[in-house]
């Protein structure tokens, strides 16, 4: 280590970058993955260049290692040139290396690199608007990128992680991001640990099932539903109304659960919410004619089918909106991208509400309670009411997410709502950074991707490249067998590890909110005002 520290900053930056270059080009060459390695490399190089310590350290170190006047000559150039040249130099170098390694260009990589480069060159003021808009545009056109004619993917493969996530995974990622943003209101803003968030998810999903499915065949209620056959009894309400109903039911449940329990101190509250999170799915499992005496949830098989979403025939004819997301003229068509775009719309609404709530009087009260209950109460913040509102708002968006989840898979059944899911969502919030909406969304995307595709892709890559795997010898119920690893089996162990590592080494998360970080670093007075023993 001492030897390493004696080297100049330039060397210390250059060596890791060079190692990454070699690694990725080697991977790209070995995998025959078109250009992906080079693309990832350029992205990394750009990030390194954007990173202030590197930029500040680069030229003085060049001067130190012997290139005379480098800094002064460089400094004479205009800021635009100073920004524009280094990425191009690195890109050219990488392209040369990749060309030497014998990999050919992929149009998607070039396009993405150009977009990145243009964004990088934009002035900061415009970039602040352009960057989110570009990301949003990419996310919106994602279904078109991934599924062109003949199911040929436009997007390239990435080493180790293999293909880009498919539509189902993307929908799940967005729904879980919605839930993580909802939980963030409770855990991140108000500082109340909720270990039973899955209850609201389940409640939202079941509420959608109650008001938009043939479950209650005793009655025949219709209100704006699309794609429901003429003879089908039951309650059929338009999915958009059902979303709202699900959200309100979940929020009311949040108030009912929260009201008696929110006066408990933090860890007891966590346990009580966990209890609710375990009870509600059990009610769902047992809630059929045998268990409850009334078929509320249809037991283990669950509610199936849930009505498809859509805008109805009138909107189809006059506005050109899709009448039905799933069926077209009685034919089953795979309109997954419509459900995906619906999910994006709901996520945007959730994020908007979350940020506006945070900056509102109520949100400031939440943060005040999180930082110091006693001081907040002394300043006139009504503790119980504010906490209950936090709970209800979190539950509201959990309910929306649950309802859209039910719509997505057109059914709801109890095995989807285990305690695991609560911890899964919690680990998204913790990994992303409690209190920071964007961090939480990033955490949700990353973890859901890992859960749905990433882990199996990575272990598939490891089986093919690192291990001598014999698939015929593999035992599906053990993690390591026949020389193969089956990482998805221990996915929750990996999330547990992520939670522990983040809590130990970076308790404010990967993308910390500034205020929360300060709280963790300097500590806050978090002795509760209202205690159980009163």
């Amino acid at each position, binding site marked *: 280590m001492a030897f390493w520290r004696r080297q100049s900053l330039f060397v210390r930056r250059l060596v890791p970058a060079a190692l990454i270059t070699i690694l990725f080009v080697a991977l790209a060459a070995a995998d025959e993955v078109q250009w992906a390695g080079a693309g990832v490399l350029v992205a990394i190089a750009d990030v390194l260049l954007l990173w202030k310590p590197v930029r500040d350290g680069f030229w003085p170190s060049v001067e130190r290692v012997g290139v005379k006047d480098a800094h002064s000559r460089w400094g004479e150039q205009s800021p635009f040139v100073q920004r524009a040249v280094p990425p191009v130099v690195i890109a050219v170098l990488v392209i040369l290396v990749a060309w030497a390694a014998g990999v050919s260009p992929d149009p998607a990589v070039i396009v993405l690199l150009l977009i990145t480069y243009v964004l990088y060159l934009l002035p900061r003021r415009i970039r602040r608007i352009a960057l989110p808009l570009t990301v949003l545009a990419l996310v919106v056109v994602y279904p078109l990128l991934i599924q062109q004619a003949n199911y040929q993917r436009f997007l390239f493969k990435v080493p180790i992680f293999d293909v880009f996530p498919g539509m189902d995974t993307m929908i799940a990622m967005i729904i879980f991001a919605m839930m993580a943003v909802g939980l963030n209101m409770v855990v991140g803003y108000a*500082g109340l*640990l909720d*270990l039973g968030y899955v209850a609201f998810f389940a409640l939202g999903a079941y509420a959608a099932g109650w008001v938009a499915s043939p479950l209650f065949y005793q009655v025949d209620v219709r209100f704006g539903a699309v794609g429901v056959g003429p003879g089908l009894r039951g309650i059929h309400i338009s999915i958009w109304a059902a979303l709202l109903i699900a959200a309100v039911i979940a929020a009311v449940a949040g108030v009912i659960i929260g009201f*008696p*329990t929110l006066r*408990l101190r*933090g*860890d*007891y509250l*966590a*346990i*009580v919410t*966990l*209890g*609710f999170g*375990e*009870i509600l799915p*059990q*009610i769902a*499992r*047992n809630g059929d004619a045998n*268990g409850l005496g009334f078929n509320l949830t249809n037991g283990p098989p669950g509610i199936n089918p849930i009505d498809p979403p859509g805008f109805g025939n009138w909107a189809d004819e006059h506005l050109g909106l899709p009448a039905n997301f799933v069926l077209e003229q009685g034919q089953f068509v795979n309109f997954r991208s419509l459900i995906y775009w619906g999910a994006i719309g709901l996520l945007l609404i959730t994020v908007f509400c979350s940020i506006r709530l945070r900056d509102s009087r109520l949100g400031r009260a939440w943060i005040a309670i999180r930082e110091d209950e006693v001081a907040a109460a002394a300043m006139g913040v009504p503790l119980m009411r504010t906490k209950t509102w936090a709970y209800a708002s979190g539950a509201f968006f959990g309910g929306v997410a649950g309802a859209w989840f039910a719509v997505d898979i057109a059914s709801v059944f109890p095995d989807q709502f285990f*305690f695991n899911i609560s*911890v899964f969502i*919690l*680990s998204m919030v*913790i990994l992303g950074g409690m209190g920071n909406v964007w961090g939480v969304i990033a955490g949700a995307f990353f973890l859901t991707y890992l859960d749905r595709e990433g882990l199996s892709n990575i272990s598939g890559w490891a089986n093919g490249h690192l291990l001598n795997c014999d698939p015929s010898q593999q*035992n599906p*119920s*053990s*993690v*390591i067998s026949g020389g193969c690893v089956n990482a998805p*089996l*221990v996915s*929750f*162990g*990996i*999330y*547990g*590890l*992520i*939670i*522990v590592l983040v*809590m*130990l080494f970076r*308790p404010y998360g990967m993308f910390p909110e500034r205020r929360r970080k300060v*709280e*963790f670093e300097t*500590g*806050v007075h*978090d002795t509760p005002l209202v*205690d*159980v*023993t009163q």
Partner: protein
Amino acid sequence: MVTEAHAEPVRARRHISEYVMPAVGLALVALVVVWLAINLADDPARFFRVSLIGLSQGALYALVALGYTLVYGILELINFAHGDVFMIGGMVTASIVLQVFNMEENPAFGILMAAFLVSLVLSVVGCAGLNATIERAAYKPLRNAPRLAPLITAIGVSFILQNVAILWKGTRPVSLPVSEFAQGSGHHLFTIGTCPSCVQYTSDRLFILLVTVPVLLVLLWLVRYTRQGKAMRATAQDKDAAAMMGIDVDRTISFTFIVAGALAGVGGTIFAFYASTISYSTGFTLGLFAFTAAVLGGIGNLPGAVLGAVLIGLIQAWNEGLPWHTPGPAWTQSIVFSILILILVFRPQGLLGERTPEGS
């Protein structure tokens, strides 16, 4: 002239809600008592039979609940991973029985006892070491962090342990060889009445009590009458003051985790022999039941944890075994968690009172 002030006793005005909550709680308890009485009258033999099962189950819960209560009493941390430490103890036992002893169905009594003792010792040592390691690695660095940080870490550790078990044994439950003695079939110590309406006391139930009761007594002696126990109690009351009196707080906390882990190890071995099947998820649910027991008795309170555990065991057995208007096994979890919620809402200090630095 001095007017004498009338010493009218000042009565605090009590709000109506302060009467409503206890009344509702008492009404709930009364309802349960009536339900039990009807069941008792309905089929007394069955009632006692079921209660004996519950007693043994409760003794098992007590071993785990004491671990929760010990750790909570000293650190105010709900050690979520405790149930999974218990499960690891059961897995150690299963490994020893299957791999070292190669035990078959219905082994000779000597082999059974040898396997039991060896696995008991190894499981206790393993769980104690594991629990102490967890404390050092995961909880100690967070001792001054916000209060919820170690709790979240404990959840993570719990998941890690469950997945270590998956890594080790796979996702399918591990089955131990069935032995008549450990399962109690055919070994009736005494029988009252004529079967089928009889009360039988079987060997396995006695066996559980024969192991757990001495362990609990040793624990009480350890905490009440030894130097180390005194240090534990002092640390629980006030860490800073204890440190000033020359108590090594870190060592005492480690010792507490070792004791808790050892108890979980005893529990794990007994569970493996008694239930003869154990899976990676066993510890989580059982751990939550045991935690409920600890809260029910009053967290931090050792006799309370035992009382709560026995009550939870009895309630579980009554729910699953009694004939008249019982929800049945499908609802056990809901009932236990409802008890947890109700006790926290109506009597958060538990039945025998809480003994934590904050609570006392």
